[in-house]
């Protein structure tokens, strides 16, 4: 058995399903059902979150191995098993998922009024898929969770989304599905070569370079869409704009991390030579993403679209960090993923707060909000600053590490990434100025009420995290430093062997 003494990861993964089961049973008047559904979903996700804190406490930070292992035979004919476990790379993402889900449910408390039960069911299913994906130690199992996410998210965007929700949900689904089927073929090819889909065993397996290239491209098709990297990012702004607030939070907070997590978990350990081979291309794509989408963000009128493009830019920093293959770079990428999960999630929640009151996301419709909603303006400013990587807030340590690592590779790459930071400050401050400052001219804006207790409850944990991550990043970095160190070492060893062989 594992460190917790019970199969905690499976419990975390499938406990939300219990909530779904209860929700399915609820009967009665629509209003009663809605209220019951909200409370059931909130309690389920809170229990899952509290349970997941066991991981935070019991995780052995000095070890680079997988922990809390579980293993059950599933498809023995094919050597495919049900295997769960977390290491330094995945453990914090499990926590991020379990933290954001109750916040999302709380954030949709009043804004979702139709089909509340179905909405809550979708979110709990989504939680199962997200947690399962980060815990899966079998490639096929990973794929099932990775793809399974599409179903609840498709429904969340399509049913509770904005006016162009149908277009956005289709685009989201088909883009991701298109990328993923190539990964499926790659998984099968890997299985055929190695005879297993267990991730730890695959990592030991040497794949010929020629095949690595093909597999890398197949993985890239899937993960690059999910990250999303330029130029396959176009589904993201549409999905974000049309999704309900909580959907955007999960999308930005967790789903985008799946692609980067995939690169870290599969592309680099399994395909070290191909990763090194394609690294320059990845730098270029990352830098283009950072600079180009930042410029695009500058021109946006819609608050959500602006933040969506900023997400693409931040994820460009992440992919850049990952493909530096250095301790600093990968740690910075992981930290940026976490901080972006918290900060962009919080920013979408900030948009949601004013959207709930005025039902528009157009920046020009606001102005002077700071005068009528001082507490809100304070919260919004905190996260704006965290997003532009102000030192002392969550965004800073990760981006700093990535830029340092990039400088070691090539100063020009670092300059590109730094340009993105400057542009980031420009568009985020534009957004903040447009919403919070300026003349208070409109009557409906004047009538807006400041944050209510429920909204304080949603923001409080995120504010704490944003400050904590900025002031004392070590408490998060320590989780993954051992794993990353081992990964970097193995990568260099693999590259070293390959180049020695080539030298012969």
């Amino acid at each position, binding site marked *: 058995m594992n460190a917790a003494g019970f199969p905690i990861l499976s419990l975390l993964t499938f406990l939300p399903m219990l909530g779904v089961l209860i929700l399915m049973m609820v009967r009665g008047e629509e209003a009663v059902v809605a209220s019951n559904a909200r409370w059931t979903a909130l309690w389920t996700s809170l229990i899952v979150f509290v349970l997941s804190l066991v991981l935070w406490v019991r995780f052995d930070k000095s070890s680079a191995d997988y922990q809390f292992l579980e293993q059950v035979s599933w*498809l023995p004919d094919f050597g495919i098993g049900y295997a769960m476990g977390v290491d330094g790379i995945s453990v914090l993402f499990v926590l991020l998922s379990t933290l954001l889900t109750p916040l999302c449910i709380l954030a949709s408390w009043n804004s979702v009024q139709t089909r509340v039960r179905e909405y809550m069911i979708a979110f709990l299913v989504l939680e199962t898929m997200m947690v399962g994906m980060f815990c899966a130690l079998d490639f096929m199992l990973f794929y099932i969770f990775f793809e399974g996410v599409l179903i609840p998210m*498709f429904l969340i965007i399509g049913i509770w989304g904005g006016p162009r929700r149908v277009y956005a*949900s289709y685009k989201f689904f*088909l883009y991701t*599905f298109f990328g993923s089927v190539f990964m499926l073929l790659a998984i099968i*090819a890997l299985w055929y070569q190695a005879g297993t889909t267990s991730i730890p065993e695959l990592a030991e397996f040497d794949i010929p370079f020629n095949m690595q290239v093909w597999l890398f491209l197949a993985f890239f098709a899937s993960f690059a869409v999910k990250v999303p990297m330029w130029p396959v990012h176009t589904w993201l702004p549409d999905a974000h704009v049309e999704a309900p607030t909580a959907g955007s939070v999960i999308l930005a907070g967790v789903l985008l991390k799946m692609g980067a997590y995939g690169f870290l978990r599969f592309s680099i350990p399994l395909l070290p030579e191909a990763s090194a081979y394609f690294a320059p291309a990845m730098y270029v794509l990352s830098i283009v993403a950072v600079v180009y989408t930042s410029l695009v963000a500058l021109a946006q009128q819609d608050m959500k679209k602006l933040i969506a493009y900023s997400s693409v830019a931040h994820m460009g920093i992440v992919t850049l960090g990952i493909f530096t293959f250095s301790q600093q770079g990968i740690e910075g990428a992981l930290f940026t993923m976490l901080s972006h999960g918290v900060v962009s999630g919080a920013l979408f929640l900030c948009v949601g707060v004013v959207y709930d009151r005025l039902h528009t996301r157009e920046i020009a419709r606001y102005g002077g909000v700071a005068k009528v909603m001082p507490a809100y303006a304070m919260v919004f400013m905190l996260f704006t600053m965290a997003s532009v990587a102000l030192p002392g807030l969550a965004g800073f340590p990760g981006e700093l590490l990535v830029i340092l690592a990039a400088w070691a590779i090539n100063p020009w790459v670092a300059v590109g990434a730094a340009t993105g930071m400057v542009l980031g400050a420009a568009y985020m401050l534009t957004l903040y100025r447009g919403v919070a400052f300026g003349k208070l001219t409109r009557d409906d804006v004047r009538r807006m009420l400041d944050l209510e207790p429920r909204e304080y409850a949603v923001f409080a944990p995120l504010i704490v995290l944003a400050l904590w991550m900025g002031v004392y990043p070590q408490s998060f970095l320590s989780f993954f430093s051992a794993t990353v160190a081992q990964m970097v070492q193995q990568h260099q060893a693999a590259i070293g062997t390959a180049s020695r062989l080539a030298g012969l």
Partner: protein
Amino acid sequence: MNWTLALPELVLSVCGLAILVFGVIPKRDMTFPCTMAVIGAFVLTGVLVIGQAEGTAFGGQYVADDFSAFMKLLSLAAAALGLLLALDWNAKEGLSRFEFPVLVLFATVGMMVMISANDLMSLYLGLELLSLPLYVLAAFDRDNPRSAEAGLKYFILGSLASGMLLYGASLIYGFAGTTNFDRLADALSAEAGISAGVVVGIVFVIAALAFKLAAVPFHMWTPDVYEGAPTPVTAFFASAPKVAALALLVRVLSGPFGEVIGQWQQVVVLSAILSMVLGAFAAIGQRNVKRLMAYSSIGHVGFILMGLAVGGETGLRGVLVYTAIYIAMNIGAFAVLVAMRRNGRAVEGVDDLAGLGRTDPAMALAMAIFMFSMAGVPPMAGFFAKIYVLLPAIEQGFWGMAVIGVLSSVVSAYYYLRIVKVMYFDAAATGFDLRPAGVSVVLAGTGLFTLFFFLFPAMLLDAARHAVAALIG
């Protein structure tokens, strides 16, 4: 001479005759008791099939093994579920005639004979015994011109296929000197090589079976017949006869013609690719759910043929697993189609499903499960079905076919999603009439199977493995 091997078929036929008499004597409407009796006969036959000994009978014309047992159980289950769907439908459409279940029964006997055929002659016998009741069933709603048209169309094209089969069989007999599968296998494996006449004969036989399967390029009849025939009949068409045709195709191609795989493999590969692509693209523009399902079934047949083209133990196992899962999702989806009835009138437009997520959440959920499953989204059963045919395809290096397969499943995801979209995203129309009990039973069974297949995949997999082992030996 071991006639007891054919006991399931004999018992079923006798039951059929008895039910015919039982139905015709009383003056009142005997549809319900007859349907129940037929389902009872199916269950009895199923038990006999499970307990059946193995061996060949009737001078090598007939074979019973694990493979035939697997396929027979599958077609019996599909036929029984189809009958459950038809019960309420026929009553509402004024088609309550006790002949309906009896026709389904005789078609099923034909399927079982086909599945157990070990000779081109018994193959033809079974195929005709299957086809004749199907022609009648297609035209069962005889006052409806569309149904009559479907029956006639199916009859004419079906006769053409039968003719091709006979022509192919006679060519094979003429050039190889036998119609028995075992002796054919010996004759074709001889060093002497294979004559062009046999190859032409094999292609004709494949073409005739591909017609029954509705694989491209022998699919033309499918959309029209599916659309015109009464919906429960379409549900039956899209499932049980495909099992039988597939069983035969698998048996013929892996047994007697297994040695000459090089001669027919490219034909099957081509048909698989064309079916997948056509199934994906042609369904996009459909407004009628039944036509849409027709093209979708063509696409699925393409996937099944992919497993067949690859062949070998894993390939054929993929075929069996895919077929079983396809039957479950397909009958489930057709159960929803059967329940599409507004103010007593059957409707069949995609748009008629609008707002089903509100008016009947349980049925919409089931339909969504089937649609995601057909699109191949995990963790639904359809995903595993695709895995089991893609694994051998990649193992054997059929990269092109595998890539086309997954891409066509992305394209087909578009129209499966459209149904989900219509049900959940669109504004609610007036609800359908009360869901009949038979439909609910079928929906619950197939829906739970499709959703929870991932919990216990080993059962189906083991059964399929035994079946294939019997075939390949």
